[in-house]
Each structure stands twice: as C-alpha cells, then as structure tokens.
C-alpha cells in the first residue's frame, strides 16, 4: 500500500460552499430576527394593552358597585383612592383621579387659573400665561396687560391666532407662546398643566379629591385657611373641612363639595413613570355600555 497525495480541488470547493452557505444563513437569520423583533414588540404592546384593558374593566366595576367615601371608593374587597394616590389592581400600579378634583376651564374660567399657574411657575410667567389665555378666549380685541391679541401674534410672525371662543381642549394651551412643553408635561416632581387642567371637565369641584395645590386658587381662600383646610383634610377631619367650606360659602352648580361626578382619569405607572393614561365616563344608567372611553393613550405619549 502506498501513500498517495491528492492535489484535487474538492476541499477548497467544499470550504467555499460552506462559507457561502454560512453567509447566506447569517443574512437569513438576521432578516428573520428583525421580523421577530418587530413581532415581539407588537406582542408586548398587545399584551400590555390587554392588561390595561382588564385593569380598566376592574376599576370600572369598583366605581360602579362600590361605596364612595370622601377620597376613595371601595366594595369590601378593594379600596381605590380617587385623589391620585397610588393603588394596585390586577397587578397594575395605578393612580386614579376624579375629574371633579381637577381644574375645569368650563366651570371656573380663566380668572382663578393664575393662582394655579403660580404653583407651577414663577408669578410673572403665571400672570403672562393667564393674560394670554384670557385674551385667547375672550371675544374682543382689546389686549390685557401682558396679554396678546390677534395683531400681536401677526406682528410677532406667529402663525396661531386667538380662538375668541372657549378652548377646544387642554392641548390648545400649547398654542400660547408662554406655555412650554415642560410646563404642560410637568417636571421635577411637579405635575404639569395637562395633569391639573381640563377644558370641559366636570360641572362641580370635589374638595375631597382635589390636589393640594388647587384648593386655595379654586376656592379663593386666604392662605392660612387653605393651610388649615388641607391639614384637616389630610387628618381626615371632614367635619372641620365642611365647616371651613360652609364658612366661605363655596359650592359649584349646587353640588355638594364632595360630589365625585362620573369622569375619572387613570394613570398606569411603572418605574419609568406614566406608561398609559385612560380616561372614562361612567354611564351607570346606559343600556349598552356602562362606560365610555374619553382617552386611551396606551402607551402614554407626553407632549413634545
């Protein structure tokens, strides 16, 4: 038996073919992986939407069947705060805020807004925004101090023009030159205009669920009484809260000061902040749907 050396081309050919196949398979797997990433993303969005939808249904059930307190609603099994305090339902962290506790532009107009803005920004800017908004919604062309009318927008080369009618939604506040995206979204742990102000809102004001910073400006109370009222509220001294309100004769549209209304905001949260915002109106007497969706931002998109 003799050793024979084969100087053929089979081995290089096989190696070349293998290299080509490897490149081809890598390309294919990259394509498939991109598609899979997209599908995984879609699936996770759908799963999250389903979870939010289920949690919303559970919250609606409690809202429709529960017993209402000054600041919460409960049905014996679950207690849900309605003043924006965190709660957990169906494994979701959520903050529920009654619309009655927020600033309704339709109910309260522009006049009390300056006080609210003063809680979010410096007083000079608060006065400017308030004047700009007052000029925006009034029907005349007379400019307020610090305000802007049609001619001013034109002179400054701005495209927007005042509506001279009630604003159509809170989003419209962004058209005012002094309102920034940061002020709309909130920053440094402070809420934004979009968190506190509603264009239509409810036709009453609920002292039980309103954020602290709205109490003084909306009720028009002096600071010491506001502080006293907020302290009594956080201590659960509701008879004292009622007494302070009665002393100042505040009521809106003949509703009692703790009337909750039918509209609610739910901010679902994770460690990243608000991840979904759902707003609903309860329809307890409707024959078809027991609630209507007003807002469905899943995932939540901040103002940009």
């Amino acid at each position, binding site marked *: 038996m003799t050793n024979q050396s084969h100087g053929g081309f089979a081995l290089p050919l096989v190696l070349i073919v293998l290299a080509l196949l490897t490149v081809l398979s890598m390309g294919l797997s990259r394509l498939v992986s991109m598609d899979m990433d997209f599908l995984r993303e*879609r699936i996770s969005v759908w799963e999250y939407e389903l979870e939010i939808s289920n949690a919303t249904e559970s919250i609606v059930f409690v809202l429709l069947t529960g017993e209402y307190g000054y600041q919460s609603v409960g049905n014996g099994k679950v207690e849900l705060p309605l003043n924006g305090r965190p709660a957990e339902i169906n494994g979701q962290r959520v903050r529920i805020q009654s619309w009655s506790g927020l600033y309704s532009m*339709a109910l309260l107009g522009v006049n009390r807004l300056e006080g609210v803005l003063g809680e979010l920004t410096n007083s000079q800017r608060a006065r400017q925004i308030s004047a700009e908004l007052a000029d925006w919604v009034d029907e005349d062309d007379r400019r307020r101090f610090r305000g802007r009318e049609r001619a001013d927008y034109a002179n400054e080369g701005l495209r*927007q023009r005042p509506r001279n009618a009630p604003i159509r939604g809170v989003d419209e506040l962004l058209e005012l030159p002094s309102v920034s995206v940061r002020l*709309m979204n909130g920053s440094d742990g402070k809420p934004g205009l979009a968190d506190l102000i509603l264009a239509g809102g409810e036709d009453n004001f609920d002292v039980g669920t309103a954020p602290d910073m709205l109490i003084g400006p909306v009720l028009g109370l002096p600071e010491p009484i506001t502080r006293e009222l907020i302290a009594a509220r956080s201590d659960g001294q509701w008879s004292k809260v009622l007494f302070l309100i009665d002393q100042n004769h505040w009521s809106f549209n003949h509703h009692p000061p703790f009337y909750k209304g039918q509209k609610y905001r739910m901010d679902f949260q994770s460690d990243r902040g608000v991840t979904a915002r759902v*707003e609903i109106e309860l329809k307890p007497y409707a024959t078809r749907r027991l609630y209507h969706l*007003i807002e469905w931002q899943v995932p939540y998109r901040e103002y*940009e």
Partner: protein
Amino acid sequence: MNRPSGFSLVEMLVAISIFSMLLSLLMLGYSQGLSLWQRGQDRSETWLSLEHRHQLLRTLFFGARFADYRGRGWRTYPYFIANQEGIEFMTRSPLLDFSGRVKPVRVLIERDDNDQAKFRYQEGRRHSDQGRGIYWDSGRSLLFIEEMRNAGFRYLAPAFPLPPDLYSAELSDEDRLRYRDEPEWLSWYDTAILWRAPLAVELSFRDEEGARHIWSFQVPGQADAWSLRGKIKGYD
C-alpha cells in the same frame, strides 16, 4: 473466462439517466421550495408592513379630538367629514408632527381605472381647525399603502333617538338622517348633519397578494372639550 472489469455502456446510461432524473426532481423541489420561501417572505413582509400601518392608524384614531367647533350658522359640532373615499378629522396624534399637537388630518383612497388604490395620509397646518379655517399642508403627506384593491371605509353612527318633542314628519330630509334608535353602519359621515362623532371606523381592502383585510378602529366619541353637550336641548 475473464470478465472485463468496469461498467458496460448500458449500465452507465442507466445510472446516468437515474442520476439525471433524481437531479431534476431535486432541482424541481429546490426551485419550488425557493419560490414558496420567497412567497412566504413576501407575504410576511407585506403583513408586517401592513400591521405597522394598522398600528399607526390606531394611534391616529385613538387620538381623535371631538370638541365642538363652530360650524355652519350658529350650530357647533365635532369635525368628522367622511365618505367611502376618505376621512377628515382632528387628532392629537398626528403621524408627521409632535405628539399632542392637535391638527386636522385626512386619509384618502386614490383609485385608478382598474380599482387599484393607494392610501394617502395628509396633515393640515398647525393652528388650523374647523373654527379658524383648515389649511392643508401639501408637504406633509405620505403614501401610506401603495397597492390595495376593493378598498372602502364605513362608519358606525351611534344611536340617536328622536327627542319626544320632535316629529319626524316635520323634519327636513337632512335632519331625518340624524336620528336612529340603533347604531347603524353608514357609507358616509358628516357631523354637520349627524352632530355626533362615529363610534367606530372600518377600513376594508385586499392587499397585493389578494388577502382581505378588515381594520376596525374605535373612536373615543367624546373628549375633554369645552363642549355644548348638555347645554343644547337634544344634543346629548
């Protein structure tokens, strides 16, 4: 008797013909497999691309804003004008602008003679609306879906029972269109006549592969708006 080693010509011919048949079968299978794989890949790409567009449209419709804008005469109503060929409405989720900027948008079906259709999306200018005038921005437009067939929209009008103090016989033909006891699918929608926003929008079409798609979009019928709801008789 010595038998010569190797294959006879007949054996070789038989072997070659069997090998050729096997090779041709293999090539046929390979080519069919390749073509199937290609079709599958095209299909998957079409599906993924349509799914992506479906999601964008969902965002657009979920962001729909139905404030009461000033309309014809003294009447105010939400802005939603639509027929089988397209829709115009206001949204806070425009696809070509920042989130939260309320703008008019329209989606249009552009057909050719062979019922091939394209789906175009266009945005209006910022700060334009029904109350202050709508101005379309020709630069802010994109071809959303390129190859569609049998495309059309329809709209679910909400129940709007005739108020007890109104008599159908006394209403004009246009006013009569507004009232219905049950939700009803319509091929047109004009809030100047119907006053209320639709409950849902449906887009149906066949894609380039011939597969049928029906996309339903829920529309939040009310928004937080300084509204006339409850302030005008019969409006709610």
